[in-house]
């Protein structure tokens, strides 16, 4: 309507306009270095006419003598210069120190950092490529207050990312944030090469992320890939490194001698016999004749000393006045640490985008991002077996092999099996490693095309984006035949092959209006989004396929009856209407409001409404602050928002009638079973409140950002144990609260003009708490043997069991203790705290033993630059979390295995020897196998995350004109981690350490070139 008025007024008063004297203003915009700046936006204030500078920084614009010309460019202070009759105006831009002038990407648009009222952290692309990681999010570890990143060691595996704790029960929905890459939603971004990313914003609080409705309950990570710039000459960049991964903090297991001593202490005749068997089979150690002549360090056997990692990327960006482009190709390779034929990840990415201004009202563009990854996944079970395999078993048993060969046994294997010396299991981790092949081909294509129509120049535009994402995953899992013993073999090869595809289409329309009325600045956005997400899966299985890899197809199977096929699919549609209004008065008083109306086909209840608002007050703009010169900028802000989590299954309680078969008189007969636990679910609702401040002090040297938040998840879907039966069913029955304080402080200083430094520190506290369980006092989780309980007032899934008071040291202590008497305990057994003092240890004595959520996470950075030399060091850490050492706990199921050296060396073995660990025989008594804090350990750690040294070379000044600029650098990623936990690594996503791929240190050398 305004547009219509404008057009009419144009028509009516055109004569008047032409009556004024038009000047042709020319000039050049330069930086302080006197070089022209291309792409500077130049508009006549209050009119629609505008232009940009050319490649050399020159411009021409029509204006009247009374006009004011506004020059603006990102990263520089905007300048307003009255024409005052001149025809040539040259402008010098000074580099802005004020970060607050930056613009950040927010949902469906951008906002000036100055105007933000919510907690958004932006990470620069340079920061992302500083550490050598194939996974973008891994590079953020310790850098964003309140974002916990838990590394995954296996090649190509995404880390676990949690923003501000977890709001959902872990099994019902993961707590990964929503990733929005160029407008498309993703659950993970393993396909992106960090060097292809231009900007990454983390929307931490509800008021910021509510614009994304039902997907954004766990926070949002907004990513834009690299784009070209208007009127920029082409730049070609190479970035690359090559490095090695080195296992660190390798867990020490009991060696053969320690193991034999431990077994002798257990007094178990059978286990002593197995040692005897080993000595007969493999001989006696010459050093200690009571120990077999075998001392296998299984971790050393299965793990490579070093593994390669490399990344190379080439990109080209540039643009003319109307067209901008950016292209790139990158390659990433990571070898795994496991000693097996194939354990690796490779990814090749091709990317391109271009934008074109068709005319003065239409802009269009497209982008393509193709990723082709291949992952060879080594069986994780090897880590589990390596912990438990006895050290008196050699890797190979040639005696057995020769015997098998003599007998003409097909598929005879040289590997040993613990069954050869009497053990129940085969134990040898190589059987899992070498006779399994699991390959994944991961192909992802993200592409989008958009048009941007200007309805009112510089004020109103409509952007329509169609995005398409196609994922094709082929997974091939082959089991190869082998024969070691009668019970350690795989008779037939098998193949399980599946293809799954995702085809997601988004159509977004966003209408944006910006205007100013005097000191009032408003920005309005209205949009719609239509989503169609289609998942499709097809799996086949067969046995008895040929052994050469090119024949690993189901069609090659010799066994018709073993073939089976399965498929399933899911297609979810969503429609959303949303809007945002932001307002500020003189950039002093800020207000912000968003509303999203979300429709989804997933749930019975189709529609939900998600509002959010924010308020801010830039105190430093007030006149009463004029005296406080040391304060450059000071803002108080607060926000509230509500959003949903649609990652919850639409229903639970396996649906209803299932076909099964059974045997009646040796005939296969069909039957059906019906479950009665079915229930529909709805989305979880998350409500978040955030208050915070931003301050810049002492001449822009010190930046402070602080936030306090409370995030409540209502209708949280939590598994409720079925009564009497095994299993559980998900119900929307809980309220979970996360709250915490986050702070980031950054100091930029200069000692001399050549020596600059940066010091930064951030920390976040987290309190996770179950607030309500809709009538129930608690809900049990975890497993019955290692109980975790969610109880009102406690963190979700806290470990729950007995508290260990110590170890009964002598018969006197047993005699004086009613509990010990009643349970026929012996010295060396654990003494549990009798919480209720009734001399009976039972359920009433179980207490909360801690939670896997760290209550403090922190990170820091030290940066130094001297002339062309740059040094930086990042640290990070966490404290307050607990880890269940299930490796030790597994003994309750299988006790004829090895134990770690720390445990073996410190077992109770007579009065006063240990008040922490039970005796060797005690490990095998049910009493000590009760779940207690003997198995729950402190997960705190401190780590030097990254150390990087870089040297900049200006090619043109060293070698001559036309030569590229270069940066050479070396990095050490995770060179040092300090912790007390008895495991490889304290980074255990769900707090239960059973079998994890360890996280290596990475040392790289790299080179960046810019032409």
């Amino acid at each position, binding site marked *: 309507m305004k547009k219509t008025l404008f057009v009419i007024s144009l028509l009516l008063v055109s004569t008047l306009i032409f009556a004024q004297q038009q000047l042709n203003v020319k000039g050049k915009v330069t930086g302080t270095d006197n070089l022209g700046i291309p792409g500077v936006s130049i508009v006549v204030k209050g009119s629609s006419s505008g232009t940009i500078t050319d490649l050399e920084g020159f411009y021409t614009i029509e204006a009247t003598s009374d006009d004011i010309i506004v020059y603006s460019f990102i990263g520089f202070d905007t300048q307003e210069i009255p024409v005052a009759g001149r025809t040539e105006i040259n402008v010098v831009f000074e580099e802005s120190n004020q970060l607050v002038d930056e613009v950040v990407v927010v949902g469906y648009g951008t906002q000036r950092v100055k105007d933000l009222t919510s907690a958004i952290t932006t990470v620069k692309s340079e920061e992302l490529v500083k550490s050598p990681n194939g996974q973008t999010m891994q590079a953020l570890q310790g850098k964003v207050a309140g974002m916990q990143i838990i590394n995954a060691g296996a090649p190509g595996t995404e880390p676990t990312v949690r923003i501000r704790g977890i709001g959902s029960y872990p099994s019902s929905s993961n707590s990964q944030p929503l990733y929005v890459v160029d407008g498309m939603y993703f659950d993970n971004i393993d396909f992106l090469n960090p060097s292809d990313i231009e900007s990454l914003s983390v929307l931490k609080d509800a008021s910021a992320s509510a614009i994304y409705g039902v997907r954004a309950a766990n926070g949002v990570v907004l990513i834009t890939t690299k784009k070209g710039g208007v009127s920029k000459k082409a730049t070609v960049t190479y970035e690359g490194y090559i490095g090695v991964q080195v296992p660190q903090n390798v867990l020490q297991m009991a060696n053969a001698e320690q193991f034999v001593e431990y077994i002798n202490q257990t007094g178990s005749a059978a286990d002593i016999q197995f040692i005897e068997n080993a000595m007969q089979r493999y001989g006696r150690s010459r050093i200690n004749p009571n120990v077999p002549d075998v001392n296998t360090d299984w971790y050393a056997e299965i793990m490579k000393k070093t593994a390669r990692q490399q990344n190379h990327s080439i990109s080209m960006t540039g643009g003319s006045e109307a067209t901008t482009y950016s292209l790139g190709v990158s390659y990433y390779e990571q070898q795994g640490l496991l000693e097996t034929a194939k354990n690796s990840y490779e990814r090749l990415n091709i990317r391109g985008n271009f934008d074109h201004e068709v005319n003065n009202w239409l802009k269009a563009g497209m982008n393509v991002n193709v990723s082709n990854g291949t992952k060879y996944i080594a069986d994780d079970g090897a880590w589990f077996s390596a912990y438990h395999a006895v050290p008196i078993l050699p890797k190979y048993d040639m005696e057995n092999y020769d015997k098998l060969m003599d007998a003409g046994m097909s598929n005879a294997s040289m590997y040993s099996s613990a069954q050869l010396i009497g053990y129940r299991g085969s134990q040898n981790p190589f059987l899992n490693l070498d006779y399994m092949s699991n390959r994944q081909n991961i192909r992802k294509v993200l592409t989008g095309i958009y048009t941007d129509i200007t309805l009112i120049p510089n004020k109103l535009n409509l952007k329509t984006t169609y995005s398409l994402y196609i994922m094709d995953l082929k997974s091939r899992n082959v089991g190869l035949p082998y024969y070691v013993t009668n019970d350690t073999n795989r008779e037939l090869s098998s193949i399980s092959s599946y293809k799954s595809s995702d085809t997601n289409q988004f159509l977004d*329309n966003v209408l944006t209006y910006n205007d100013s009325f005097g000191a009032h600045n408003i920005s309005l956005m209205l949009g719609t989004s*239509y989503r169609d997400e289609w998942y499709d899966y097809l799996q086949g299985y067969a046995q008895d396929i040929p052994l050469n890899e090119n024949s690993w197809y189901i069609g090659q199977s010799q066994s018709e009856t073993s073939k089976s096929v399965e498929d*399933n699919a899911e297609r979810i549609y969503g429609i959303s209407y949303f809007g945002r209004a932001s307002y500020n008065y003189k950039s002093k008083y800020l207000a912000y409001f968003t509303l999203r109306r979300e429709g989804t086909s997933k749930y019975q209840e189709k529609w939900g409404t998600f509002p959010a608002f924010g308020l801010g007050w830039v105190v430093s703009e007030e006149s009463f602050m004029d005296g406080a010169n040391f304060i450059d900028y000071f803002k108080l802000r607060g926000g509230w928002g509500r959003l949903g989590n649609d990652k919850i299954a639409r229903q639970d309680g396996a649906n209803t009638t299932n076909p099964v078969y059974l045997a009646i008189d040796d005939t296969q007969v069909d039957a059906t*079973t019906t479950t009665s636990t079915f229930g529909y679910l709805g989305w979880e609702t998350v409500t978040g409140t955030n208050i915070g401040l931003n301050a810049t002090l002492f001449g822009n040297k010190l930046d402070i950002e602080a936030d306090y938040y409370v995030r409540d998840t209502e209708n949280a879907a939590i598994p409720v144990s079925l009564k009497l039966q*095994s299993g559980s069913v998900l119900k929307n029955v809980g309220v979970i609260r996360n709250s915490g304080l986050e702070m980031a402080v950054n100091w930029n200083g200069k000692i001399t003009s050549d020596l600059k430094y940066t010091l930064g520190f951030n920390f976040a506290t987290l309190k996770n708490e179950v607030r309500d369980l809709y009538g129930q006092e608690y809900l049990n989780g975890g497993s019955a043997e290692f109980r975790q309980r969610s109880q009102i007032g406690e963190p979700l899934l806290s470990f729950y069991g007995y508290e260990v008071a110590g170890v009964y040291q002598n018969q006197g202590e047993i005699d004086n203790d009613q509990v010990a008497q009643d349970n026929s305990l012996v010295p060396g057994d654990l003494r549990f705290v009798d919480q209720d003092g009734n001399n009976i240890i039972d359920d009433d004595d179980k207490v909360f033993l801690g939670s896997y959520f760290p209550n403090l996470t922190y990170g820091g950075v030290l940066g130094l630059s001297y002339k062309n030399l740059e040094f930086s060091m990042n640290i990070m850490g966490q404290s307050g979390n607990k880890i269940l050492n299930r490796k030790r706990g597994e003994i309750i199921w299988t006790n004829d295995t090895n134990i770690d050296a720390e445990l073996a060396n410190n077992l109770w073995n007579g009065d006063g020897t240990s008040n922490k660990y039970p005796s060797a025989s005690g490990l095998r008594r049910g009493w000590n196998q009760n779940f207690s804090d003997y198995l729950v350990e402190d997960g705190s750690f401190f780590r030097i995350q990254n150390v990087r040294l870089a040297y900049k070379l200006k090619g043109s000044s060293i070698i001559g004109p036309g030569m590229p600029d270069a940066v050479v650098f070396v990095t050490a990623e995770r060179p040092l981690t300090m912790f007390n936990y008895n495991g490889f690594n304290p980074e255990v996503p769900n707090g239960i350490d059973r079998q994890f791929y360890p996280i290596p240190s990475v040392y790289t050398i790299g080179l960046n070139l810019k032409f």
Partner: protein
Amino acid sequence: MKVNKIYKYFTPFVIGALILTLLFGCEDKLNEPFEDEAFTSDVDYTIGDNMVLPLLGAYYGLYTRSWEEPLTLGIRGDDVNAAGDQVPMQEQDEFKYLASHWNPNSVWQLHYNDIINVFTAMEEIEKYRPAAANDALADQYIAECKVIRAYLYLNIARTFGGCIVIDELSNIQATPLSNLNQVMQYIVDQMDEAIPYLPDTHPNKRSDIKGGMTTYTAYAIQALAYQEMKDYQGVVSATSQIINSGEFELSDDYYHLFKQAGKLDDENILEFQYSDFNQSEGDRFSFLYAPFGTNWTPVVTGASSGWGFYEPTLKYIKFMLDRGETVRLETSVVFTPSGITEIQDQYGSIPEWISNVNREGDIFNDNARMNFASGKHIQPSTELIDGRTSQGSNKNFIVIRYAEMLLMYAEALTRGATTSLSLTADDAVNLVRERAGLTDLSGVTTKNVLDEKFAELAMEWGTRYYDMVRTENVAELTHEGKTFTMDKAYLPFPADQVAELPQLGDGI
């Protein structure tokens, strides 16, 4: 110029508006049906023939037992040792109970899974009833479900000394605990309800579900419940029905009763059926017999051995040697070389036929964790269908045998119950003895019968243990270094169940 301007300024609006309107037609997509889903409401209950499907589903639940269930039920008697490396089972064998032990919790949950499965099966059968247009058949199916359910309750109540008898699935939380006698009375009543509707034949003569429930299965379960209640007249009346029917007969080959040949034998009243479907590969319906097996050098290469968790006691072997038993000892106990040495050391000279090689030629080797294995549960490798290698593949699991009914009948008579049959206690016991190659007894006492049960039913489902608990025979259960007291008769309710259902917390 004007037209141009209008054109120029309005075009974007027109295009923009067009794009926006495209979208509003999409809302009906939200009501699209979900892909790949079948609901119970989609089941076609008008196909009356399908009424058998939920019934077979109830059988499926009954047959799909997890390995730890028969072990947990069987290890506490003086006939069996918990061997292997399972701490909770060893501790239970020594009558050291912890509510945190994992296996009783599993027995509890898996039995209740199948009890609840029976409830839903019964509901489904009722939904088919109108279309099936055969009320008698629907009634029979419901009755079969009740028998399945009663057997499951019998196990739980005998193990834990009581349990929750579900009246309605929605009311579990408010259902009080029933003690052992109450559960047994419930089973007796349920069987009375079911019997009129069940096929009046031997299970192996059923043409629809061969080996399924019949009146005699119900009588057998009822007799077991009466026995737990020490209602010996009840035992006689229920077992008399079975004896008098003439449907059942002791197998004349005790050894092969527990092998392939014994599948659906005339002696079997209830057995869990497993099968390889006579195929060398592909689908099979199986029970995991591995825990019963042990190290061996099988005749059939590749036949997998077992874990060695279930060991006949030396006490039992000595008892059998004292009695001069042959076929029942040979069938019940698998000897290893060390085991034979152990008996020689502890017993003295032993019959020559005792060997670590079975009739079929499988050689049993030493196992550091046990000296003997349970022959009733180990299938000779030669009986495997070619191509199958799993321990005991294709072998059925016998649950209730006619021999047990005869001995229960005899015991009840020795305790003063009366019978209308001509079969005396002596006759019943001697039927069992003759088959075992033993001489007749006359004037059998209760002790004679219980000894006979020990010899006949050892290693089978804890029968020996229940007998000793019922007769409060602390002395017998206190054996080989394990001390039993009557307060150890029942396992404590699993801690996990108490946490879910407070009524269990108060105990029985």
